[in-house]
């Protein structure tokens, strides 16, 4: 099992109250599958994703990565080498070119520059962008193109787990379809574990497994293909 959550809980304090965002969640994720986590706004989907990405520490329970407790791992190394995160609003560096954005995580894991360049160009092509995009800044790209760059960046390090937070939230239907196709091919074609938090029924329909979050609880395993 690539990633497993066992009785995971998480709460945070706002100005007026304590929010129990995730309550006793247990689930498992395997390589080669596309997972969708669906639910209403405020149900705790993104918080669950943050816990899996190592951006937050669970209050209770345990998250295991390849059988190791996530809390025992170096969180920076975990985010650098094991998981890649794709955001709804892309979160590209606005002042770096497409190529520089994609090369950034490769620089962090000390990939030699020439090799990093080669990998970056390769993944940029893989997400359907040609080399002419390499020198462009994110502001020169459409939303769909920016999301492709974000996916290319996630692919570049070869991370086994890809976490995507509403990756199609800012895209039109055509681009949504393309991105779904990309994520599906990553899961099925490259044997990666792709976990997508989404409102989008199209994404949910394309997923191999769908989890539903409701008030912090993973209440229903909706569908298994």
């Amino acid at each position, binding site marked *: 099992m690539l990633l497993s959550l066992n009785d995971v809980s998480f709460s945070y304090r706002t100005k007026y109250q304590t929010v129990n965002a995730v309550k006793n969640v247990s689930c498992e994720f395997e390589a080669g599958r596309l997972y969708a986590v669906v639910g209403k706004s405020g149900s705790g989907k*993104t918080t669950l994703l943050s816990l899996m990405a190592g951006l937050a520490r669970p209050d209770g329970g345990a998250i295991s990565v390849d059988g190791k407790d996530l809390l025992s791992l170096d969180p920076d190394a975990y985010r650098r080498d094991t998981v890649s995160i794709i955001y709804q609003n892309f979160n590209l560096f606005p002042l770096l070119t497409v190529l520089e954005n994609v090369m950034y995580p490769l620089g962090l894991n000390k990939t030699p520059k020439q090799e990093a360049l080669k990998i970056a160009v390769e993944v940029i092509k893989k997400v359907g962008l040609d080399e002419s995009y390499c020198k462009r800044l994110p502001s020169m790209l459409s939303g769909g193109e920016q999301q492709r760059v974000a996916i290319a960046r996630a692919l570049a390090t070869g991370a086994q787990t890809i976490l995507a937070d509403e990756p199609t939230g800012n895209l039109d239907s055509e681009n949504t379809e393309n991105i779904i196709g990309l994520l599906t091919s990553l899961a099925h074609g490259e044997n990666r574990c792709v976990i997508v938090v989404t409102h989008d029924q199209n994404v949910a329909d394309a997923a191999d497994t769908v989890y539903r979050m409701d008030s912090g609880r993973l209440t229903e395993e909706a569908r298994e293909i």
Partner: protein
Amino acid sequence: MQLTYLKSRFLRTYIWAALLCLIAALGWFQCFFAGVAAQKELEREKAYDIPVELVITDLGGTSSDRLGISGVELWAFIKDKENVTDLWIIPRDLRPYFGELRVKTSLYYKSGEMSGRLIGLTDLNAEEALRGAEIVFSDGEDADFESSKSPQIIVSERFFEKLRDESGGISEASVAVGTDSGLQNAFELAVKPTGYYTGLSTDDIYCSWNLAADIIRSLGEEPYADSISATVKDNGELDALKEDLSYYFTEADPTETPKRNPNAVALYYYKNAAVIHDELMRNTLMTLERNIAVLNGLFPITAALECLVSAAAAYFYIALRRRDVAIMRSLGTKSAFVIAITAAEMFVICAAAFALSLAAAAAIPICEIKISSILLVELSALLGGVVSAGVLTRRGGIEILKEND
């Protein structure tokens, strides 16, 4: 890769230039401020050069041409010109205090149809009337009036022409000199003028103080002065001068009540007052002291404010990349690395700002280069930037990437 990020920030935005200029300007302002304070200190030093005049007056405070100063008071001013060792009190020598001493005494003379006063001076400037007159000396006689070895005698142009002989030379004149205008106790004296003055309506004769004093002694009296005034040589010695003056003179007193001199060994009353006109110097000094006190008081406040502004500017400069840092952290960049690279960036900016501050301070003359003040501003900026980076890399810093839940 982090360097690529910094490089692109430097090349594709110019906000760093604004921060650099701001920090440099703050550092320079400290130099400017210190320069203004130093300038005021310099002006205070120079204020001691404002001429201070000493004038001897009567006790009532009125300056007069007939003060009748004699005895120890007079010798205190001109003792180096007179033998005073046999006086009953050893006078304090006031002359070293003065750059320009103006002592004047006058007698009366008559020579044929010419008559008027015979005036002895320590300096030509001692006579107010002569300051506007043109003085013409005979060839080879234009030596310093007081220090000349031959007696310098200046008469009116009319008198001078009367003494001119057929060959164009000047002959001696016999004059009767006395202390009263009626010349009842007169002394006959042969004088040969060394020059003449023009532009005055009188026929007064001007000679050196020594000659006049000798004439008075020949008439059986002690030399006296009609007026004494002087310019203080070194204003830093005013206190010492005042103390020495107190042996012979009191301060002007409108009641004109004679006062006993407590310094005198015998019963002795002050006859004249000494007035030191240092009002301009004192007022100037007081104003400058006030200014310096204000500047010195403001200096630490402005320094603190500048450090605060510098630190805040650097803090917000780094805080602007909050999202970028969050992205870096989400991609696995270590927080220590972000802080280190931020510190390096701030160091480069601060070093450039330091150089710019120094250059600007050196180029503008009023500035005083204060390395420590500039460094303090730079260090504040460095600290502000590093603290900002520290805040951005906290665990919660990545939270901004969360858009939904």
